[in-house]
């Protein structure tokens, strides 16, 4: 049976080879100035982890991922609840599609759409001014990170909504009916009866939102390419590659790989794989 999996296995090994390649060169000093890589032990890692811009970008990526996990789950719980209690299936499906469409859009297009929505003169600020509200310099150094965080909520919350909603729809209606007989209100039913039944959605949404957040590149790159206040770790990696600091780029890659694998492996083995074999 292995023969069936072997074509995919070859590509999997190709991927592993690239990851190993990253780790190998992360222990060298390879760059434009040292075209012949020499083994330098942990020096490149020390260099990367003492570079304030790189450290800030790593912290920012993790912060963004953590914030997106929190906000995405909150939006997922609220919106899936609101959709679940709709009586009209068509309305529910249309609304769900509207919450998900940003995921089907190219992120670079999303970046450009929001670039101009955040424009101080022509964008949302125009509306703010018209309503007598103070205008916000959305993409200025002070707010750029938070503005991009708002876009990620818009772009990725739909992911959490579909998992919460799918699991809510699987809760047997007898459970809800029993609570109704006991006189519980809708809100109580949702909090006390339904949400405890959809804990799986919390695990799935958290893992996926974290991993999607870790690869966020086009959004800040398209909106504020050179603004160091919104640089994610993978953008920092890209600039190191462009400026031919190859060893540094692979060291950042090494760190990001370790973080991603720490989430993917338990998720795959104790989540996905177990759910598959149980069914």
């Amino acid at each position: 049976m292995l023969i069936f999996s072997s074509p995919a296995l070859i590509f999997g090994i190709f991927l592993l080879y690239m990851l190993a390649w990253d780790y190998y060169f992360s222990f060298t000093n390879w760059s434009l100035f040292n075209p012949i890589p020499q083994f330098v032990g942990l020096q490149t890692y020390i260099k990367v982890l003492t570079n304030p811009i790189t450290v800030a970008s790593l912290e920012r990526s993790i912060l963004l991922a953590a914030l997106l996990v929190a906000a995405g789950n909150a939006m997922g719980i609220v919106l899936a609840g609101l959709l679940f209690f709709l009586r009209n299936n068509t309305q529910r499906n249309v609304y769900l599609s509207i919450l998900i469409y940003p995921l089907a859009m190219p992120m670079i297009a999303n970046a450009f759409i929001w670039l101009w929505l955040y424009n101080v003169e022509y964008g949302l600020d125009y509306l703010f001014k018209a309503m007598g509200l103070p205008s916000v310099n959305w993409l200025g150094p002070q707010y750029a990170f938070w503005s991009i965080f708002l876009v990620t909520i818009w772009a990725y919350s739909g992911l959490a909504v579909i998992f919460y909603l799918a699991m809510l729809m699987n809760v047997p209606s007898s459970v809800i009916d029993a609570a109704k007989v006991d006189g519980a209100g809708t809100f109580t039913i949702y909090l006390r009866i339904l949400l405890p039944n959809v804990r799986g959605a919390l695990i799935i949404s958290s893992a996926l939102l974290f991993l999607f957040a870790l690869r966020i590149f086009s959004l800040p790159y398209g909106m504020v390419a050179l603004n160091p206040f919104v640089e994610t770790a993978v953008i920092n990696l890209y600039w190191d590659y462009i400026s031919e600091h190859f060893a540094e780029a692979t060291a950042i890659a090494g760190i990001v790989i370790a973080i991603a694998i720490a989430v993917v492996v338990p998720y795959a083995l104790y989540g996905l794989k177990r759910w598959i074999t149980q069914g």
Partner: protein
Amino acid sequence: MVNAKSVIHQVVLAIIIAVWLIPLYAMVINSFKSNLAAQTTPVLLPSGFLASNIVTVAQGLVYGLINSAIVVLPVVAISTFLGALAAFGFYRLRHWLSDFLFTLVAIGTFIPYEVAAVPLVKIMVALGLFNTYGGLILAYLIFFIPTGALLMSIFISVIPKDYIEMAYIDGASDFTVFLRILLPLAMPGVIATAIYILIMAWNNFFIPLVLVESPSLRPIALAVQKYIGGYGVLYNETYAGSLIAAIVPLVIFVLLGRYFVRGLLALGAGAKG
């Protein structure tokens, strides 16, 4: 009392949905503004309907759409087929090796593409595939064959085992079972996998960013960024470019969105029920 509650419920949802639609609305109305309107009206207000703006931008970007089709369509076909084949292998192989392969597939699906930037470029240069369609296709396959295998594993797991056991009892070979029994039974899952990979590969920006140098080879996502990036152009052009970059995945989403949702659900093994 009940009525007041359901009114609030509907109003709250309607507001959230309206907010979610603002970017789509902005993209559409502003793609059809004149240059003058783009300098005098805000992004949120419509102003006239002028096709010439988007037509001009489209003419400059058609090549990107063609490049995307050249690269993405083979990737969708190969990733879905080889992914399904691999998933069938995992399904039959009850073994520690199956766990290992499944983990590998999950890593390929979820790891940030950006970590492969340097090795990907250096390996493609060494293979003579840097800055070619072939190199782009190969690079996409490295990430999307695992995606295909992961999604198909989930979809195959919900097929009743009896159907497959029965075919074996009748003496069918593995490959016959795969082609004649499994693929037809898993067809909605196959379509979902293909649609998911199509949308994700079409929208991918980073892989061509590092692997393509010649402007003429740029897929649409990269072509748009090079064409309209930053505040250097009028916003009607920016929005028209975004619309052209988004049009193929958006149309597919509108027509076949339920398959895309199934694909997303499968990322969390939620294809059941």
